[in-house]
């Protein structure tokens, strides 16, 4: 048999395979260059970028939980300027689409970061992280209120011609409502899920483990929730989806495709195995070979219910 066709199309970007690295788990790419071939994966998503450098939260920032981990990094990042001067030149030499994950501390910042990124030829698209507290509206998270999310998405839309992915939070009553809101506001694709809010306690010290008290749950533990949300959104919204949450191997990734995702992102898995993204793409391909499936795209949404 010929090698299966692993390419997928995502909001105008062609990926050599459906595997992307998840924001915040892959640094700015170079950190992992020793461990995998950056040109073996579908796309690379940067750490979340903000207008100005951001310090993030005090430590401890991470803790292991059963089948997962909590993180409260607090979106520490070098800021858009340093990204352009220090990180992008390296990435420009890599023949793999780079998608910039962005967020703002205010609505306006979302717009500014987006317009800065729009000017960069080395950036193939943007992923908008709306799971941030809206400082002006008293800490309500943009990503849990459909109207606030729409405002963000519309503003970013006005500020970029690049493909725009909106990343959804799972901490909502109805993810489909959020998905529709973002679709209506002009998103080209949706990625889901970001982390579930959780907490860990140090019994002996009677304190939260994380300095930030709560953090975001990621890893295998959340996979069932992520699969469910991808499936729900796929049935309700026409946009291409990117499935994220606890993907550890090729089979996990293919399950997300069946549920309706056109691509996947690998997060926590890269911590356990820095070559995870490449391995997962290879495992997906091997599954297709073993099962005589000619094109990976034929599996998207192929779940029989």
């Amino acid at each position, binding site marked *: 048999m010929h090698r299966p066709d692993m390419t997928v199309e995502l909001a105008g970007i062609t990926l050599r395979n459906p595997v992307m690295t998840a924001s915040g788990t892959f640094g700015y790419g170079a950190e992992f260059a020793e461990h995998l071939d950056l040109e073996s994966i579908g796309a690379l998503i940067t750490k979340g970028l903000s207008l100005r450098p951001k310090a993030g939260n*005090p430590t401890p920032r991470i803790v292991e939980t059963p089948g997962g981990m909590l993180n409260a990094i607090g979106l520490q990042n070098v800021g858009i300027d340093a990204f352009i001067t220090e990180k992008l030149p390296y990435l420009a030499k890599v023949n793999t689409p780079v998608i910039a994950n962005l967020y703002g501390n205010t609505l306006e910042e979302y717009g500014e970061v987006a317009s800065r990124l729009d000017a960069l030829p080395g950036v193939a698209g943007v992923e908008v992280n709306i799971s941030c507290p809206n400082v002006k509206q008293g800490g309500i998270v943009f990503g849990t209120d459909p109207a606030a999310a729409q405002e963000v998405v519309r503003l970013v839309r006005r500020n970029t011609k690049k493909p725009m992915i909106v990343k959804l939070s799972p901490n909502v009553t109805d993810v489909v409502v959020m998905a529709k809101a973002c679709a209506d506001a002009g998103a080209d694709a949706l990625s889901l899920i970001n982390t579930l809010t959780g907490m860990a306690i140090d019994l002996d010290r009677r304190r939260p483990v994380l300095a930030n008290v709560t953090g975001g749950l990621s890893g295998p533990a959340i996979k069932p929730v992520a699969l469910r949300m991808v499936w729900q959104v796929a049935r309700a919204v026409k946009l291409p989806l990117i499935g994220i949450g606890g993907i550890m191997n090729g089979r996990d990734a293919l399950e997300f495709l069946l549920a309706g995702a056109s691509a996947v992102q690998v997060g926590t898995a890269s911590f356990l195995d820095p070559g995870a993204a490449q391995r997962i793409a290879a495992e997906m391909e091997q599954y297709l070979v073993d099962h005589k499936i000619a094109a990976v795209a034929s599996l998207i949404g192929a779940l029989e219910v």
Partner: protein
Amino acid sequence: MQFKSMVVSNVEVSPGYFRMRMTAPKELEKTLPGQFLMLKVSESIDPLLRRPFGFFDVGVLPAEYAGGADQTYAEILFKVVGKGTKMLSTLHHGDLVDLLAPLGKPFNPGPGGEEKLLVGGGIGLAPLYYLAKELVAKGEKVRLFAGGRNRDDILCITEFERLGVETYVSTDDGTLGESGLVTEVLERHLAPGKRIFACGPTPMLRAVALMAERHQVPCQVSMEAYMACGVGACLGCVLPGAAHTEETPDYRCVCKDGPVFDSFELKWS
């Protein structure tokens, strides 16, 4: 580098402390003292994350003992504190583990001719043996100050002595060596022209760092932090640098900028 490694031996050297030798690829011989490894205890998701350990030793078992070809090995010295280290303590010859190594910045041995003062608190001794070995090989004068709560926390002193290192032991309860804190013993030996290398609990490192500053002795510390990636990507393991404030934040990655820092790089208050 990521590789599978076979456990060669795993011995309880003191109650709750294990010394484990694992096979390693030849490239690992380039490991420098102070660097560390991330070990995946089991293939299962429990425990999920890798666990960081310093290199207690790296060496080569010659062909005549290893059966045909030289066998590079790495050793760690670990304390059983939680789930991962408990599982690790049950491994024996022939079991496989998955390693990511070598990681992080090593100790800077400093100019030749200085006296090198190694300060270890409890399991903090672990990375100092490999350091002592290299310093001794360079012909340096090395002293070790080993502290612990009691006799059981004083590890592998004979190994250091066998290298020719002069050792000073102190315990909180006086069950071995001097009674008192390791820093008290250390202070008596501080003088310009010496250099400190310290590893142990943060309160001890803080005391050593401040003492070194007072005595104008250069001091390097090896720090710990909860880690996920080990390669500078997750930003989980940061510590505040000396100039860090809420307004002008300055965080350093223990995994990439460290684990070894010059003591003045970090914020100690």
